[in-house]
């Protein structure tokens, strides 16, 4: 029972996936309940995780390969929330597509379980397995649509993902070669003991790991796939990719670089790598986003720029002392705020695109008159992405910049601030179209209950945490505390 308890949250999700598949094949006329089964599984998973929190039952499991700590719990909740929103936002699209209902929801749930495993992994092998568990279904989902673009997206994602995985694996192999172990704790100990002897090998391993995870996090220069895949993949899947796999990438990078590479002699190296990647990602992502006419491509490039913001937090981590956890909690806060916000934006895009049959920003003109709710919600999420108060995005940005300033990265913060201004131009450009432009048609854009619910929850989250950010900040800080304890 005890080891079942340890994987309970993932198990609940996977059981739901199996039930969905069974319903699909045994009682196809009952298909309409499938998303609700998925939601029930996710709810069970969240409740299971909650019992750990209530019992204060944090532990290392399976010989130290899984860490069920505050950090993992933070991401469990985040991934369950993200997946639930994606499921709700998919209902309309899947019904309209009219095929493979069960498979779709099952794959989404499998991705969720993979992401959850990933955030708890403390061993290179577990990390790689859970990464693949979450990635392979995503390749399928990206190619789920019937059109050519979606197939292209799926194939592109698969090929580049395979390259990234092999880079990652190579990096892990080097790391294993240098330290003789796959467990992050032992790697840290080995580096402490005689890391200087293998310094060049370790740095090479580190670079390969960053390249492999950089693909997941979608930061420059590993971002090439992003705009094409986001544009081609079905919009709910793009939403999932833009928050789920990105958040997981950051989770595992935090875990590896905190736990394995904590030795002082390496930290300066990776801090500088992250700082440069952050600056480049922000700038390239934002500049490219300005010229986009397709809202999904625009959100793709904006997600690259946002990943640059996360990385400011990563770069700030290297500083020891009181600030040590500040950078980590900044990343967590940003991940959570970004997840709410970007999901909200994508759900609004799903709702609008389905009705008007276009992803072109110019077709969003006058959306305010056609659907005030969607226009206000989308504009609000875009404002949050820009980082203007009173939104969750503002606090996240401010917290990250604060961490950067405390870590003596003033130059990076100034680049980040300038980038916020650039991003205001294209984010608010969409808002301007919606509120000021003349509508192409007078027909109202209606919102289905499921979309309305997911969008309402996401937007409300952005607003509530925008006015009272305390709870979110303290949770992020608790989760980051685990690194200080070691």
């Amino acid at each position, binding site marked *: 029972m005890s080891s079942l308890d340890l994987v309970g949250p993932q198990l609940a999700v996977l059981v739901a996936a199996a039930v969905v598949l069974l319903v699909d094949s045994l009682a196809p006329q009952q298909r309409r309940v499938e998303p609700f089964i998925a939601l029930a599984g996710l709810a069970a998973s969240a409740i299971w995780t909650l019992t750990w929190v209530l019992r204060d039952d944090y532990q290392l499991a399976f010989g130290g390969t899984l860490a069920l700590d505050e950090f993992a719990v933070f991401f469990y909740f985040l991934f369950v929330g993200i997946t639930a929103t994606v499921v709700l936002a998919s209902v309309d699209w899947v019904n309209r597509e009219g095929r493979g209902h069960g498979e779709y929801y099952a794959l989404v749930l499998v991705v969720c379980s993979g992401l959850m495993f990933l955030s708890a992994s403390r061993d290179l092998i577990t990390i790689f397995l859970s990464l693949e568990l979450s990635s392979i279904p995503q390749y399928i989902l990206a190619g789920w649509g019937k059109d050519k673009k979606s197939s292209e997206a799926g194939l592109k994602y698969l090929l580049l993902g395979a390259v990234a995985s092999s880079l990652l694996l190579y990096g892990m192999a080097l790391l294993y070669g240098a330290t003789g172990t796959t467990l992050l704790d032992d790697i840290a100990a080995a580096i402490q003991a005689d890391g200087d002897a293998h310094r060049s090998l370790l740095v090479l391993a580190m670079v390969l790991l960053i390249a492999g995870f950089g693909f997941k996090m979608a930061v420059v220069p590993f971002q090439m796939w992003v705009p094409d895949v986001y544009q081609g993949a079905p919009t709910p899947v793009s939403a999932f990719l833009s928050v789920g796999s990105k958040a997981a990438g950051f989770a595992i990078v935090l875990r590896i670089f905190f736990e394995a590479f904590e030795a002082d002699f390496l930290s300066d190296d990776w801090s500088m790598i992250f700082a440069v990647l952050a600056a480049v990602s922000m700038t390239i992502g934002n500049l490219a986003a300005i010229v986009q006419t397709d809202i999904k491509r625009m959100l793709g490039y904006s997600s690259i720029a946002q990943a640059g913001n996360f990385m400011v937090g990563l770069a700030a981590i290297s500083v020891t002392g009181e600030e040590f956890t*500040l950078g980590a909690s900044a990343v967590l806060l940003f991940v959570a705020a970004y997840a709410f916000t970007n999901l909200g934006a994508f759900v609004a895009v799903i709702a609008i695109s389905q009705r008007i049959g276009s992803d072109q920003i110019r077709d969003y003109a006058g959306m305010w008159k056609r659907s005030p709710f969607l226009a206000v919600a989308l504009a609000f999420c875009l*404002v949050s992405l*820009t980082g*203007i*108060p*009173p939104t969750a995005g*503002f606090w996240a940005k*401010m*917290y990250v*910049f*604060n*961490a950067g*300033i*405390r870590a*003596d990265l*003033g130059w990076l*913060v*100034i680049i980040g*601030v*300038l980038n*916020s*201004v650039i991003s*205001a*131009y294209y984010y*608010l*450009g969409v808002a*301007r179209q919606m*509120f*000021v432009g003349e509508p192409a048609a007078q027909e109202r854009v209606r919102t289905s209950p499921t979309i309305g619910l997911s969008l309402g929850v996401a937007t409300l989250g952005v607003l509530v945490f925008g006015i009272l*950010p*305390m709870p979110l*900040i*303290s949770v992020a*800080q608790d989760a980051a505390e685990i690194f200080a304890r070691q």
Partner: protein
Amino acid sequence: MDIELSVLLFLPAVAGVLCGLLPQSQERNAKWIALAGSLAALGLSIWLFLQFENDGGFQFVEKREWVDIGAFNLQYYLGVDGLSMPLVILTTFLTVASVLVSFSIETRQRLYFSMLMILSTSVLGVFMALDFMLFFLFWELELFPMFLLIAIYGSGRKEYSATKFVLYTVAGSAFMLVAILVLAFEAGTFDIVELGQSNLTNAIIPLGWVFLLLFIGFAVKLPVVPLHTWLPDAHGDAPTAVSVMLAGVLLKMGGYGILRMCVTILPEQADDYGIWFAGIGAASILYGAFVTLRQTDLKRLIAYSSVSHMGIVLLGVGALGKTSMMGATYQMIAHGVVTGMLFVSVGLLYDRTHTREIARLGGLARQMPLIATGLVFAGFASLGLPALAGFIAEVTVFLGSFQKYEWAVLVAIWGVLLSAGYILWMLQRVTFGPVKTEWNELKDQRHWWEHSVTAGLAALIILLGVYPAMMMDMIGPAIDPIVERLEV
């Protein structure tokens, strides 16, 4: 703990939300709700004004924990002193005025009035906030209503102007945010009162840079040449009420910020850069005045004259003397009322003629005597006629700055002479001269709301002109601590 300020702060916002929630069939009642809310806020602020004791400290203070974890220690902290109280009352007064001049708005009234009211709350928040992050929050909040008000209800290239306004402000405030974080990191607090008493000597970036970053944020808003180009566009394309708010109170956020933040928190750097303030101020005065002379559009003319008049504020602040800074504060208030009235008069004209081209107007004093009287009166106040509000302010600034920056004042005087030129020339072309028959059919100002706005503004201009002590007695004690810090 006092809650008056919170009530005052959120009164307009509550009225705004109520406007927004009205059912479609009740659309026409939005303006009444907005009027009731803004009148209540005006009444409350007058009551606070009468309660105010001129002892130099912050009053009606309200302080609550807001975000308090580790590196962050933010408070919901409100209070007013002699510097902000006059600006608060100016805001509530001009809010009533802008609601009244908007009574003729016909389209999408609910959104319009709710945005106007939220704008009022955000400006009040800027003047009342004593926590730097709260200040910043309100500073940014003002963008949404302004963007929508200009972009939806404006005229001409309204989208371009609205976007330009937002981008300039966002760019400026981005720099400000960096400076705020650096200051808070050094001093360990976001508390403006504490920051204003701290003696910072160094930070992770040189304090001179911090000062400049803050200054850029405020200078965009003031605006200062060469960061002023958004202003004529925004004014030219904004609806009347928005111009009134923009010129009347939004620009003052910049001047207030420079006095309250730049000079008070970093007095040493202010001393270093004071001469630049005076120089840029004088340049703004002169450049603004010259450009004003060339304008052919009434609203752009007033907008450029604002650039010139705000240069006087910067000059007064730059001289860093008690008299000059009191004059600068007084100039902010006087300019708010006077320019508010100018924009109201032009708005009334535009409602009827639907043109702001000076060349197409002329001889209107015969066809619309009341509006023409209002315009002439406001024009005289703007050029600094004694016994009207603008005169006192300009004289105080010049007297206070003359000893320190003789040359800057000598340059600035030319700007004042030019202002007499452009105002009188404008009046001559618009209200006097041969009557144009195409305007024969037009009605003069005749609604009660039009009468009450112009009468109220005119009365205030006279009051400020003949009884400056009403405000000066309040401003003086608030300037004292700033001067003390400068002298150390």
